[in-house]
């Protein structure tokens, strides 16, 4: 561990030294600054995120994302809805991995009601959760190429993501917004043929990962555009509450699927948490690639021994959640997604705090963009990976 740590230190130091030299040069030349607006409608910001950057030559001296173009006020809306209705709302937070958004909310409600889904429902939940992750992150891998000028990966990603979306659609009826999770279990059991079909698709996705690794991650241009760019050290990542692959790429061995006890099936199978010591753009992308592959292995193992039985526990027809407060978070495709649910024993939540991953992940942008060059803004933003709906909620 010491050798990798000293490597980071050296990289950090040389980076800081280079920046200090540039800053001195700028003071001598006294160049005039300019303000650059990127977005809200810009092909490289995937969504309506607007970045305001103040530049000195080619270098960013100050940058700030401007949010709110997609704020829908879900926290307020949950207060006028019943518990079963909330899943339809939270589906739309991270719209590429919708099923994963439902799970922590349902788990929080179940925790307050002191009920647990039957084992079969837990297994299917975990499978669909991982399928959401695969669909979500495989699109990231394709999108990454576009940000760097490579067009091919995005076609491959859209092609292979379609197989996963078909599986989700087959099981839940919805490609993007399944609305399938229920308090106490699931809406329905898996359809016939789901298990065999999933095995075939998981194989295809592993091929996709291999192709992507050869095509993109081995590419010289890709490496030179991402290695050593946008370095986020461990302690800064923790302070900003970065989570998911962004945190693991800074060398923090932390995965909520492994490190907490939830009524889900992750701890029933063998898998590995991938980390990378560098904390740069490359590390973040690389960790995500490994996680897609790991997810396909998790799904394969879960398919081997799905327990039989019902998919729904016995719950009252009208769901009233007892008074109390509960916090549940899960390791979603984008990072830690959690709900702080306050119940007053009513049909709907009294207050819900939605802690979404992208909000924290993007809050580091002013810090990380300071001192980078203009073309790197795009790669750093792409590697942090955000979904607009997940920032604004």
């Amino acid at each position: 561990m010491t050798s990798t740590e000293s490597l980071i230190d050296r990289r950090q130091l040389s980076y800081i030294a280079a920046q200090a030299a540039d800053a001195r040069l700028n003071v001598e030349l006294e160049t005039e600054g300019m303000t650059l607006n990127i977005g809200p409608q810009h092909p490289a910001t995937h969504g309506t995120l607007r970045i305001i950057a103040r530049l000195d030559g080619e270098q960013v001296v100050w940058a700030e994302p401007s949010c709110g173009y997609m704020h829908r006020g879900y926290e307020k809306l949950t207060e006028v809805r019943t518990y079963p209705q909330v899943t339809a709302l939270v589906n739309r937070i991270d719209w590429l991995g919708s099923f994963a958004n439902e799970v922590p909310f349902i788990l929080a409600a179940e925790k307050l009601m002191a009920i647990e889904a039957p084992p079969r429902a837990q297994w299917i939940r975990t499978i669909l959760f991982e399928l959401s992750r695969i669909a979500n992150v495989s699109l990231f891998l394709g999108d990454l190429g576009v940000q760097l000028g490579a067009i091919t990966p995005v076609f491959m990603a859209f092609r292979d993501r379609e197989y996963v979306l078909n599986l989700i659609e087959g099981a839940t009826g919805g490609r993007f917004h399944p609305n399938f999770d229920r308090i106490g279990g699931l809406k329905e059991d898996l359809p016939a043929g789901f298990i065999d079909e999933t095995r075939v698709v998981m194989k295809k996705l592993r091929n996709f990962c291999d192709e992507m690794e050869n095509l993109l991650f081995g590419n010289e241009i890709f490496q030179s555009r991402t290695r050593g760019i946008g370095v986020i050290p461990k302690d800064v990542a923790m302070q900003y509450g970065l989570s998911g692959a962004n945190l693991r790429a800074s060398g923090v061995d932390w995965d909520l699927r492994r490190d907490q006890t939830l009524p889900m099936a992750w701890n029933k199978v063998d898998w590995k948490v991938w980390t990378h010591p560098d904390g740069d753009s490359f590390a973040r992308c690389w960790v995500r690639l490994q996680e897609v592959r790991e997810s396909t292995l998790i799904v394969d193992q879960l398919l081997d021994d799905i327990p039989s039985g019902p998919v729904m526990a016995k719950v009252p027809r009208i769901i009233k959640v007892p008074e109390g407060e509960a916090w549940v978070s899960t390791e979603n495709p984008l990072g830690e997604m959690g709900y702080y649910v306050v119940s007053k024993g009513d049909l709907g939540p009294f207050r819900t705090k939605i802690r979404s991953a992208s909000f924290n992940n993007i809050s580091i942008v002013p810090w990380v963009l300071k001192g980078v060059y203009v073309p790197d803004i795009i790669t750093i933003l792409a590697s942090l990976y955000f979904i607009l709906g997940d920032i604004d909620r």
Partner: protein
Amino acid sequence: MSTDAVAAIPGDTLRERIVDDLRSAIGDALVDSFVRPGDDVWVRVRTDAWRASGLALRALGFDYFCFLSAIDWMPSPFGKGEDDPTAPTPERDDTVTQGYAGGDTRMQVLARVVHPSLHVGVNVKCDVSDADPVVESWIPVFAGANWHERETHEMFGIGFAGHPDLRNMYLPSDFEGHPLRKDFPLLARMVKPWPGIVDVEPLPGGSEDEEGDAE
């Protein structure tokens, strides 16, 4: 004690220990605490010790900043906005009752920090007075608190002393009101009556059936 040795302590004992450690660090600034067995820990600190307790938690190893927000404990005067606009306004209970770890004020600031190697989180609350809704900013403790405090300021009207830039994040800068306060109506329901009023049919068997499926 090493982290490994502490990690071997079973959950609830560990949570009790965290409360004790925090109490010895900040003294009587810790007003109340609550440990939900097998689940989570809540502490409430004095308003003037908000930043000090954040620093104390960091010193105890809670390095991961999860979120910061607020709770308005007043029941909504508008209910769920599902009332028939032609009928007289129904009577509503307006007693303010706080949740775990108690409280004295209508609004409370809530934050969560996590110990990255023990995998234990602490929910920290503090009271915010109605007359002077200001607490200290947590930015010196966790730089990431910046955006969360901006959001909380915008949504609840709570000030954060020492915050460099409390601009609105989502709403226009001339927007009046604080949307997540309970006395701010959900305008969509005010403009147009909730269509659900006419759709509701009583369930077969009436209210007794409510618990019918449970055992």
